[in-house]
């Protein structure tokens, strides 16, 4: 599936074409289900979340691109956010994470650049440039849904220190990713 193929499927899904939605599911469900399983580490929950994810994809297909994400990233972000939401609710009833893939009714920006997969591939290398603990913190936040408080507890540092660490790491990462 190329970027363009996926966009076509999402566009046709937005137009209410079930066949396109079925195709989209066929092409992406193993990837997204894998993410749900990895985040939740529980098959039943992962199935429930994957179901929720595809319901969202159908319903929000017309809002794809509001944030200028590439199609795979859009799908991954919905899966990741929905899984993290579930994980956080399971963990301690933390408020949900209704992140930007839900952002509705905003006109697309003029020429929002769609970052391409090059940027995705780079992340591992760029995390590798960070101190191991700091890279781990980014991973724990993204794939483990950990908050600053969780991270501070895990690394046994004060909350503010954790925040400062992570923010610095983000700047370094950004610098690396756009290099």
């Amino acid at each position, binding site marked *: 599936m190329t970027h363009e193929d996926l966009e*076509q499927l999402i*566009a*046709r899904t*937005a*137009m*209410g*074409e*079930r066949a396109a939605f079925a195709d989209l*599911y066929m092409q992406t*469900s*193993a*990837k997204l*289900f*894998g*993410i749900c*399983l*990895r985040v939740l580490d529980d098959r039943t929950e992962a*199935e429930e979340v*994957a179901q929720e994810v*595809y*319901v969202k994809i159908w319903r929000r*297909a*017309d809002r794809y691109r509001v944030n*200028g*994400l590439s199609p*795979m*990233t859009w799908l*991954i972000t919905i899966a990741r956010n929905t899984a993290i939401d579930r994980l956080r609710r399971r963990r301690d009833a933390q408020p949900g994470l209704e*992140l*930007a893939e839900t*952002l509705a*009714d*905003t*006109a*697309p*920006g*003029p020429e*929002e*650049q769609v*970052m391409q*997969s090059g*940027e*995705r*591939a780079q*992340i*591992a290398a*760029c995390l590798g440039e960070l101190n191991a603990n700091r890279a781990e913190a*980014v*991973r724990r*936040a*993204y794939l483990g*849904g950990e908050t600053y408080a969780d991270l501070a507890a895990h690394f046994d540092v004060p909350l503010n220190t954790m925040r400062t660490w*992570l*923010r610095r790491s*983000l*700047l370094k*990462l*950004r610098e690396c*990713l*756009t290099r």
Partner: protein
Amino acid sequence: MTGQPPYDEDADRILAGEYALGLLPVDEASEFEARMAREPDLRALYAGWAEGFAGLTDGIPEVAPPAALKARIDADLFAASPSVRRPFAGWRGLGWLVGGAVAAAVAVLLVVNAGLLTGEPELPGYTASIAAEDGSLMLAASYDADGGLLYIERLAGTAPTGRALELWLIAGGNEPVSLGILPDSGTARLNVAEELRAQINGGLLAVSDEPPGGSPTGAPTGTVLASGKITPA
């Protein structure tokens, strides 16, 4: 010098990253979203992070979900009213298909009247939803049910340079079916194939921009510029 402190892009960069990771408290996250809705630059920063972080899933093994999952999803989405397609997203939904500023500048007006062209004004007509922004593309469609002829009158607007406008019928859960290429001006007379005629009422007409001569694939390949649902008047 007085005035605002210099714009701190690093601060926004960090904020967008924290948001993408889900590290912001709820109130700050909402605030960020509100800003993002207004500020394309901020959306771009967020998109950059989302692309980067999505790469963290690259190493996660793919796992095929159980076969029953798709059926459950379909049941969630379609079971309640199997005959009713998800309503077409309409104008707002088309915004992203159209892209950017063009979204607000294109509109289609479709009036489909079964009796209009057959001299039977007493027949109930069909009208399509009207989405008028500045009306830079406006089409009026009228359908002669007896002859299976669809007349598309160009009221305003043109295809993007070097492109053609192609008209599609989308009925029920079916794939879009091309009804033909629209001429650059004037009224087009399109013969609706017999098997499609029953689908006109309640169907959706959509206009996409395509290479000259029309979509090479038989399905829309360009952006959908406008659409209108055909409903009884």
